[in-house]
């Protein structure tokens, strides 16, 4: 059942033939459009994945380089396809977005919070404290204070989103600079870094007298 893609080779003898040919041509065009919509749907799926937020129709049109009606048709197909999945295509104010279904919120939160349930080791806590009070700080600077290599600990803190890379220092080797995150402030209920318990009593590095 191949739909003829062109009719040039056929000589129409009767009016009925012409109608038939037109119908066949329409079917071919429809078929072609359908393929295009499906291909666009695949591309839109990718865009929605990498975006991580709502994407407007115009953005999809620009990226996929197809007319808006194809985009709209593709999104409709995607919505149907995702109807029975764990993810869904949501229509939000800003456009469309690929999101997890609320039914799975509990599992998702358990996954995202997993690392947080592991207690901080003494080394991690100590490192976090130094970064908090001395930020922005480079790894060598941190290691000079701690006296041990701290690469691994810094990575764990970054994973826990307690610290982040904020730039590079303009010295030899251009070492990476670390600082605490917004989440760090939120967790400890601090408005800003000035809210950290003051170290005034300590005078920089020489703890002249123990506090207790």
């Amino acid at each position: 059942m191949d739909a003829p893609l062109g009719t040039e080779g056929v000589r129409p003898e009767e009016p009925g033939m012409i109608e038939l040919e037109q119908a066949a041509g329409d079917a071919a065009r429809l078929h072609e459009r359908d393929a295009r919509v499906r291909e666009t749907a695949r591309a839109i799926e990718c865009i929605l994945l990498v975006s991580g937020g709502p994407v407007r129709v115009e953005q999809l049109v620009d990226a996929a380089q197809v007319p808006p009606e194809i985009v709209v048709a593709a999104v409709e197909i995607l919505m149907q396809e995702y109807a029975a999945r764990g993810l869904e295509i949501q229509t939000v104010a800003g456009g469309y977005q690929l999101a997890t279904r609320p039914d799975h919120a509990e599992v998702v939160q358990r996954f995202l919070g997993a690392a947080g349930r592991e207690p901080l080791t003494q080394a991690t806590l100590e490192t976090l404290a130094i970064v908090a009070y001395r930020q922005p700080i480079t790894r060598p600077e941190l290691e000079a204070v701690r006296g041990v290599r701290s690469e691994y600990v810094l990575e764990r803190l970054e994973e826990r989103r307690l610290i982040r890379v904020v730039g590079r220092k303009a010295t030899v080797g251009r070492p990476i600079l670390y600082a605490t995150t917004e989440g760090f402030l939120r967790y400890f209920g601090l408005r800003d870094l000035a809210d950290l318990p003051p170290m005034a009593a300590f005078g920089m590095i020489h703890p002249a007298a123990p506090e207790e």
Partner: protein
Amino acid sequence: MTNTRPGSYVVHTATFEGPLDQLLQLAQQGQVDLETIPLAEIAAEYLAHSRRAFDVEEATETLWMLAALIELKARALLPHPPPVEEPPAEEPGDLQELLEERLATYRVFKDVATALRALESYQQRVFLHPPEEPAGPLLSGVALADLFRAFQEVLARVPDRVEEVPPQSITVAEQMAAVLALLADGVEGVPFEALFRAAATRLEIVVTFLALLELIRLMRVRVVQDATFGAIRVYGRAARDGGGQTGGAGDD
């Protein structure tokens, strides 16, 4: 070689007094026991001296000589390691074989590199969802007081360690690469101070300085001071760009 200029640095130690180049000469001839010469003191004294009267050429020369002395002393102090296992003088045939074997090994890695390249180009066309932020930071059961206490504890520990050599060893070669990397960033050069990290240890400063001297000697960098007491800037130079105003790199 001994051309002591007025105002230039003179060594004063218990066992030797005189210009530095003389000390170096004597040491090279084995006429002075370097074990009795405190090089660190000399270096510190020179640094103090250079703060009063700094001359790039003299500094270059002095530090090169200090480096040479440190090397001599280090050699004298170190137990001699067993000689590196050089393959015994190869017969021409063996050498040929060795070269061929190396080439074969290298080719094998070139082949796998090609396979890895294919994987790379696949994966570079693959994109992921940006990782989602959890509702809160990944932390539980830690109070601000714990953090504060942890910091206090660290600070309390610090003074004990001030004189400790950092666990990471640092080599002149490493610092040379680091200096070159820093200079590679721009043609406008960097201020001299930028070569040293704010929290650099003394060892690191000395090694970085030696690295700088070695680079000057190799004519890989150029050091410029526009005015006496003016800012010193360090510039990179193309690898095989010979000729230059560096001068004073010592002759050996």
